[in-house]
């Protein structure tokens, strides 16, 4: 029991921190522009694919360096030439624009790389077991994922709260006109933040690609969960996104590891049912089966009882 719990916790941490890498960029972009970037997970996918191609020439570490830069530049371009234009039509148009962008990027990925799964491998350098616990190995690559996510969180926190750049960014979130009057180029700051956010998604893609497989559906798989995390955590709140990422990661991981469900619950309650009606699957549900649904349930509950999210204070 103990080892199942510990490994579920570790796996939950890895997933949660990976989700946070996406969620942090998304939250940052939301607090600036007030628009939820639906294409965010698509930039994550682009990161994985570009890194896959680049790593074919100069190895994994080159890909880790180059792919996020390229993705960030692409994101900045999208902001400059697409989103800025749509901004004047209002929030719904912006949301729909990013939705269309996600659709287009998925098609483009299939256009350039094809529909099949890419054989994107973890680097040999990290191909060993970091430690062995109860006879199960914990790979060094997963440790590396945890380290890099925590590193990014720390760096982001320091830059945003302790540096001059961070102060200007925070000021342009809350008081864009005042910042503009002080002589800063606010649209340029917006573009850079969008680029940085998408670059973070790119980093997540590079390090997740080898573990979660690189295929054209990877954006959809992770995408909706990331939006949900941002909303659960409270739109625009970085600490909220952090808590929600870990919460969702751990929740899913525990549900998958748990070998319990309705049959056990019914037995415990001492109830038994005739199993012959259309919904009789309900009485045989196991927790691992509903693990993918849990984040959505959590989202709906949070939105009903606290529409601003766990840490949010932004009312629309």
């Amino acid at each position: 029991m103990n080892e199942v719990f510990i490994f579920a916790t570790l796996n939950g941490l890895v997933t949660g921190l990976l989700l946070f890498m996406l969620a942090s960029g998304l939250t940052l972009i939301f607090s600036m522009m007030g628009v939820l970037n639906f294409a965010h997970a698509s930039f994550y996918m682009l990161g994985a694919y570009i890194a896959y191609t680049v790593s074919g020439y100069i190895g994994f570490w080159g890909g880790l360096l180059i792919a996020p830069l390229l993705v960030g530049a692409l994101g900045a371009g999208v902001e400059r030439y697409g989103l800025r234009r749509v901004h004047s039509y209002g929030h719904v148009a912006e949301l729909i624009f990013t939705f269309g962008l996600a659709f287009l990027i998925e098609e483009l990925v299939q256009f350039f790389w094809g529909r099949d799964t890419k054989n994107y491998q973890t680097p040999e350098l990290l191909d060993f077991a970091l430690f062995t616990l109860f006879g199960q190995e914990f790979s060094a690559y997963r440790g590396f994922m945890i380290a890099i996510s925590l590193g990014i969180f720390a760096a982001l926190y320091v830059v945003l709260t302790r540096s001059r750049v961070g102060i200007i960014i925070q000021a342009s979130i809350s008081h864009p006109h005042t910042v503009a009057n002080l002589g800063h180029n606010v649209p340029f700051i917006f573009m850079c933040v969008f680029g940085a956010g998408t670059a973070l998604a790119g980093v997540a893609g590079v390090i997740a690609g080898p573990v979660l497989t690189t295929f054209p559906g990877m954006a959809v798989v992770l995408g909706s969960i990331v939006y949900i995390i941002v909303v659960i955590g409270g739109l625009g709140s970085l600490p909220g996104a952090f808590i929600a990422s870990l919460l969702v990661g751990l929740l899913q991981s525990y549900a998958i590891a748990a070998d319990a469900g309705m049959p056990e619950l019914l037995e415990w309650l001492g109830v038994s049912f005739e199993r012959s009606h259309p919904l009789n699957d309900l009485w045989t549900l196991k927790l691992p089966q509903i693990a993918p649904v849990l984040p959505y349930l959590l989202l709906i509950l949070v939105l009903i009882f606290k529409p601003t999210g766990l840490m949010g204070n932004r009312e629309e």
Partner: protein
Amino acid sequence: MKKHLLLWAAYALVLVLLPSLFSSVLGISILNQMTIWILFALSYNMMLGQGGMLSFGHAVYFGLGGFMSVHALNLIADEVLVFSITLIPLVGGVFGLLAALFIGSFSTRKAGTVFAMISLGIGELIVASSLIFVDFFGGEAGVSGDRTYGPAFFGIEFLQDSEVYYLGAFWLFVATLLMYLFTQTPAGRMANAVRDNPERAEFIGYSTRRVRFITFCAAGMFAGVAGGLFAINYEFITEENLNALTSGRVLLMAYIGGLGFFIGPIIGAVILTLMNSLLSNYSEMWMLYLGILFLLTVMFLPKGFAGFIMMHRAAWNNGKMGSLVLPYCLTALPAGLFLTAFIGMVELSHADELLHFLSMDLANDSAFSWFVLAMLAAIGAGGVKLARPRLAAAWEHANAAAQEAKS
């Protein structure tokens, strides 16, 4: 009023005459798809265009209506229920409405991003549960039925697709009329007000939540009717009809057609259904073109095709349309050239060796083919650039005249 009656009569006439014009098997099948998608897109426009609620899970009502309809078809086949299958869309409508009543009771408190996220969450929840409740949703294979059972409707047993078309066209006409009449009711007007300025609507004394709820339920009901039509036409339904793909597709239709204009979703549904059924025969890349078309629409025609047509109202009223024809043609010609060359390049990059394009044989690996296409694209782009100032000037002129006439 007279003008309106004429328009509706024309609409009914077009619906009746269409199968005679396109009487091939493919033609009828496309028309059948159009009735379904037009109805679905209209219901989506009711939600987003009229009520201002951006939903990423509208397929839920469509799909649930469809699933209940297929189950109803099966019950008719088993003679548990006895009624004509012409009433199946009503079954879909009732269950679409019930689902909307339940979901709308908590999701319509806010519009905007919160609503969009709840709709996304519910959509994903239903899709996930469709894979869990295999008995009801049929798992990945879906559920199938048979529309030929039950009492015949005046001797019609719906063995032919064209008979199904008339059934669909009838329900489409009724639903379109009802949806139009809804826009004219005080509730429909209030939906517009709540969309544009919820704060003011609250101050006047309306509950924005209740207004949204009414619109939401009506939209869910009509989506369910569309799902019922889907069930009759295809005689099967799978979880794909519930999922984000279908929700996204209806959003694309309504947006490309033009949100907020009653006729917009009709245009959008017609364009997308045609693209889906005709273009997919010629090119594997059609989804890519669709994506590009959608993004360009969002960026340059925020009100869709219907909005583009409506932009010409001022020029039309002042009889200045004539002065726009020539500049439009001069811009459209090079734009068409650019588009053709662009499509040629996209297709060439994915062709196996030889591509037969515009009666030319282009080779995948020959630099010459690429050069020709690139040149054509460059000429097209250059032509558009040259023609644009003229178009802008003509546009200015036509609208300036309209403003003078006003003052």
